[in-house]
Structure formats: C-alpha cells, structure tokens
C-alpha cells in the first residue's frame, strides 16, 4: 500500500480510541514499614489513536507497559492521568450499566489460556454465561445454537468439545474457547494480549490466522499486544513500539519493520531470530558489542529513556526528552536522531 493510499484509508477510518497523555503510576512500598515509597512509571505520557477496523500491534519487551495500556483500554486499570476516549466517551468515567455496555463492545483475550478459563465450567457453560449476561438472551435453545455457532466460528467442533472441561483441551483449543468467549457479546473491538505466547509452534499460526479471518468476517478492530515482531508483521496494519513506558515509535507496520526510525525498534528488529545459512551468519562478529551493551533498561532522570543503550546517542539525548513527532507521513518516532529519515525524503 502506498503512502497516499494509506493516508486515504486513515481518513476513511475514524479514530475509535483516542488515547491522550496516558500516565499510569504504580506505587510500591519499600522497607518493612513501607515508609519509603518508590514509584514505577508503567505508562508515561502515551498518546495514540486506534482506527476503526484496523489491526494495531503494540510491541515491547516485558515491563514496557504494553499490557498496562491494554488493561487501561479495557477499564481494568486506572490511569493516574490522561484520557482514553472510546467512540467519544471517556472510558474511566464509565460505570454500572454504561461499563457493561462498553464491555459488550470491547472484549479481551488473555495471554494464558490455562488460567483464563474456569476449570470447573465446561465449554458450553463457559460460553453460555456471557451470552446470557451480555446479550440478555433468555431462550435456552437460542443460547445453545449460538454457542455452537461460536464454536464453529473459532474452528472447533461443538460435538467434540461442548461438554469438555478446560483440562481436557489442548492449549490451542483452550485459546479458541477464550476467543469464542470474547466474541460472545458480539464486540467491535478485540484486545488480544500475547494470545500465542503460551502455545506450541504448531498451534500458533492457526490462532493468528483465525484472528485475521475474524477481523475480516466480523469487521473487528483488533489491538494485538505482543513481544514478537514476527506476529506484528504478519498481523497488523500499524505497529506501536513501547519502551520503558514510553511510546517510542508508531507507524504503518511495513514501513516500521523495513525502515525503523527509532534505534530501539532497530535493535529489537536485529535481535529477532532469523533463519540464515552458515555463510551468512555473523556468529563470531559483533559479540563483544552485544556483551558491551549488556546492561539492560535502566531508569533515567532526564533525557531520552533509551539513551543509556543507544548507539546513536548525542549530547542532546541526555538533556531533553524527544517528543513523538511525525518523521515521515503517518510514521511517528520519539528520537532526536531518527534513523532513515533523510534517506526516505530524498528517495
């Protein structure tokens, strides 16, 4: 898709979510009496939009704040400041009936398919509860038909799994049941938090392909939280990269993965395992540089959060924090020395 087409499609699709200056601070007591408090800035001044019918990936290492953002979007975590507007209304202000309505429209699939199903409920009960609660369906026959339809939709055979309990299902089947459960209230938005991380390789691709098909067939907006650039690449229209609670880069997935603007994106891209032939491998080279930069993410008082690990840093990086700015059309990065930008404009 060319840049022009892309901007066109963005114009067509309105912003479903508008996240502005989102801050989430966790307080942690220290010492036996917890008198000393330390704060963890899990999400730090993050702003982005989610467009209707797009698939947005949020990528980052553990602790980067991606799950916290997902929980805020769901209304499961409370922002310290900032705003999240869904379809014009502020998510944190929703309560009672309005919150239930919201959850009818936005559903979440969690990382661990083993933990997120009640072990004492069979598949039928697991799926009929949200149907009855959220779509207020009373007719038993209709509920049972709908359960079967949902199972077929996630490519499970109701005849086989309907009366099974979670422990009788494989990891992939469990995750399918979780997806069916999320689809039960007929949502507009699906937030999938690392949906394939706990699965065997043979089942991962099937779950991803299921999500892609559901997006088309149900016209879903999907927010995929992942640590894996490969899933972001095949799944998403746009990708957002988080680092230490900051949104450091966001843009069309293809651009971001072929020509990342932020040095952190470049780093995770280069660290993602690839199949390479022996002659193309650089096993002995570059090891010392990898080990030299071995100290991991650390907090900084001023300047860019990534500066301590950045090989492109200059004097300004320690002094002022870079803002998230458009470096090329619809591609934003928070970096004083954004990569590839000049090359792009001249080409």
């Amino acid at each position, binding site marked *: 898709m060319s840049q022009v087409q892309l901007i066109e499609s963005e114009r067509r699709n309105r912003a479903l979510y508008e996240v502005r200056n989102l801050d989430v601070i966790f307080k942690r007591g220290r010492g036996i009496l917890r008198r000393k408090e330390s704060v963890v800035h899990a999400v730090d001044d993050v702003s982005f939009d989610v467009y209707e019918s797009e698939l947005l990936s949020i990528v980052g290492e553990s602790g980067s704040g991606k799950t916290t953002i997902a929980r805020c979007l769901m209304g499961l975590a409370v922002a310290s400041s900032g705003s999240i507007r869904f379809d014009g209304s502020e998510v944190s202000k929703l309560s009672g009936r309005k919150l239930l309505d919201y959850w009818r429209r936005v559903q979440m699939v969690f990382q661990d398919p083993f933990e997120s199903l009640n072990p004492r409920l069979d598949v039928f009960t697991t799926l009929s509860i949200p149907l009855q609660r959220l779509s207020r369906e009373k007719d038993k026959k209709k509920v049972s038909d709908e359960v079967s339809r949902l199972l077929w939709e996630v490519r499970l055979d109701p005849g086989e799994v309907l009366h099974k309990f979670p422990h009788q299902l494989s990891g992939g089947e469990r995750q399918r049941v979780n997806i069916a459960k999320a689809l039960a209230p007929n949502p507009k938005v699906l937030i999938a938090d690392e949906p394939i991380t706990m699965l*065997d390789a*043979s089942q991962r691709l099937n779950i991803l392909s299921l999500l892609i098909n559901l997006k088309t067939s149900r016209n879903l907006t999907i927010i995929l939280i992942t640590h894996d650039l*490969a899933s972001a690449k095949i*799944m998403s229209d746009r990708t957002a990269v988080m680092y230490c609670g900051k949104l450091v880069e966001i843009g069309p997935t293809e651009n971001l993965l072929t020509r990342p603007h932020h040095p952190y994106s470049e780093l*995770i891209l280069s660290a993602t395992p*690839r199949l390479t032939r022996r002659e193309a491998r650089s096993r002995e080279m*570059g090891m010392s540089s990898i080990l030299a930069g*071995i100290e991991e993410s650390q907090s900084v008082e001023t300047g860019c959060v990534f500066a301590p690990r950045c090989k492109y840093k200059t004097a300004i990086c320690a002094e002022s924090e870079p803002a998230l700015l458009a470096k090329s059309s619809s591609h934003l990065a928070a970096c004083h020395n954004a990569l590839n930008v000049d090359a792009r404009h001249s080409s």
Partner: protein
Amino acid sequence: MSERDLLKLSDVTVEYALEHGVRKASDGVSLRIPSRGFTLGIVGESGSGKTTLGLLMMNLIEPPGRITRGKIEYQGRDILGMNRDQLRRYRWQEVAMVYQSAMNSLNPVKSVSSHIVEVLREHSDISKTEAREKAIKLLSSVGIKEERADAYSHELSGGMRQRAVIAMALALSPKLLIADEPTSALDVVVQKQILALLRKEVIEKDLSLVFITHEIALLGDLVDNVAVLFAGEIVESGEIDDILFDPMHPYTESLLGSLLSLESTREMIQTVPALTKEARVVPEVGCKFANRCRYAFARCRVERPLLKESSNGRLVACHKYS
C-alpha cells in the same frame, strides 16, 4: 583414547509410570557428542522428551521416571553405574546443566556471588577469599560487574539472573554444558545476548554445548548440529544447514513450515492446517508421526522406522528414504 566420544547415549529408553499406564519420554534414543567444542541443538515441541534427554545426560532421572534400557557413556565410562562420589565429580566438573527456569530458583536470601562461592568450595579445596575472587571473575565474564556481585536475585533483571546461572554452571570449567530452554522467558535482545554469551564460551573454552529449545530459529546462530525430537524419538539429526534448509523428515518439515518469522507472510500462515484430534494421537505401532504425516503410506502404519543413514549420508527415521 581419542576414539572415545565425549558423551554417548546408546538406545536409551526412559519410562514414566503415570496413573494410567506407562509413558516413554525417551524411546530408544542414541546420540553422540563426539568431542569438545561440539555443539548440538535439541529441538521438539512440548512433551517430546527434550528435558528428559537433558536430565539423562546428567543421570538425574528420578521416580516415577525409570531408565529401562540403554547405556550412557562419558569418555567411555558408564555414568549410570557411577556411585555417589563419582557422580558428584561428574556433575558440575565434567558436565553441567542450566535447568529450565533455573533463573527463578536462585536462593532469595543469598547473593549471586555466594551461590558460586558455594559451588566452588563444595567441589574444590579453595579458601573463601579465593572462591570469591573467582566468582567475581566468572560473573564479569558473563557481563555482571563487580559491584553487582553481591546483589540478591530479586535485585537483578531476568537476563542478569540467567547469566548468573550460566556463570555458576561454568564455575568448575565443565567440558559439556547442557542448557534447557535458557532463554524462553526473556526478551529478544536479552535472548540474543545469552546466545552470544554461550557462543563465546564455546569458542574461547572449547566447550561442548547441548542447547535444548522448542524454537528452531534460535539454533542457527549457536550450534553446528541439530537433533529433532518427536514423541521421545530422534527422527532426524545432522548439520544445522541441512536441517534448516533441506529437512528430510516430514516432522522437521512441518516444524519449519509452522515457524513464525519475519519472513512469514499472511498467505503462508493461512495455509498451515490445524491439527485434528486424530492427528494428535501418537500411534502405538508404526511410525509415531504417521497420523500427522502427509506422506504416510501403508508401511508407516505397521513398521516403526529407525534412525539410520540414508543414501546421502544423513540420519533420518523415515520410510520415505528406504
């Protein structure tokens, strides 16, 4: 004596007695680590017996597990017949293992350096000061600075804990290191650092390495040889490039076909068929992979293929090649 393999498993079977019957976690496995500096990746899905294979090499199979057949020799010595003292010397000094999620099993009330001091003093006759100096050296070789040597495990990141565990395993300069999924809970950048660190040890110390993983894509940068495990059996083994780019066994092929990488496309992932219930059943007779194999023919249903040399000199357990 140079003829002797460093480590050799011959036809080893391990059975676990479960509530309903017996399960073979390792089924007639033979493999060789011929010499120092030899690096082997063992790849397979969960439940394929990868960890059992690692534990076997340490002679650490415990009830309900039982070795029912086979022999394991280290430089010609039978390790299954070793007494306690011999085993104590064998483990850590000859062969060391980084266990799965070992980074989460550090003692929370001990500093990382004192873990290593303990290993050193337990196995060799050195003073506390000497042991501490050596521990600090070991930690710095894995990128943990002296000022962090006395940190407790909760003060370190996952990657640092994993590196500390590797330093501990290397404390007594073993000839062979077995690493069981050492990077599975880590971020890609940290993962790459751990792989680079292991590679450095292999090159600098002529260390032999057995790297156990479910992610075949990790192996390219690290090992020279691969053994592919399915349902407790090695179905194919050989040089890394052969396995990655010219797989022979249908299971290796499917493993590579379901690999999610930056080269994958939407079209590719949508053509991977989902495993049916029937396909997931491992047959009692014939080839264990037959139910999932798109090449399976009559012979595969009745006769189990053995791992043997095919016409091109590679090892594969498949009737397609005989």
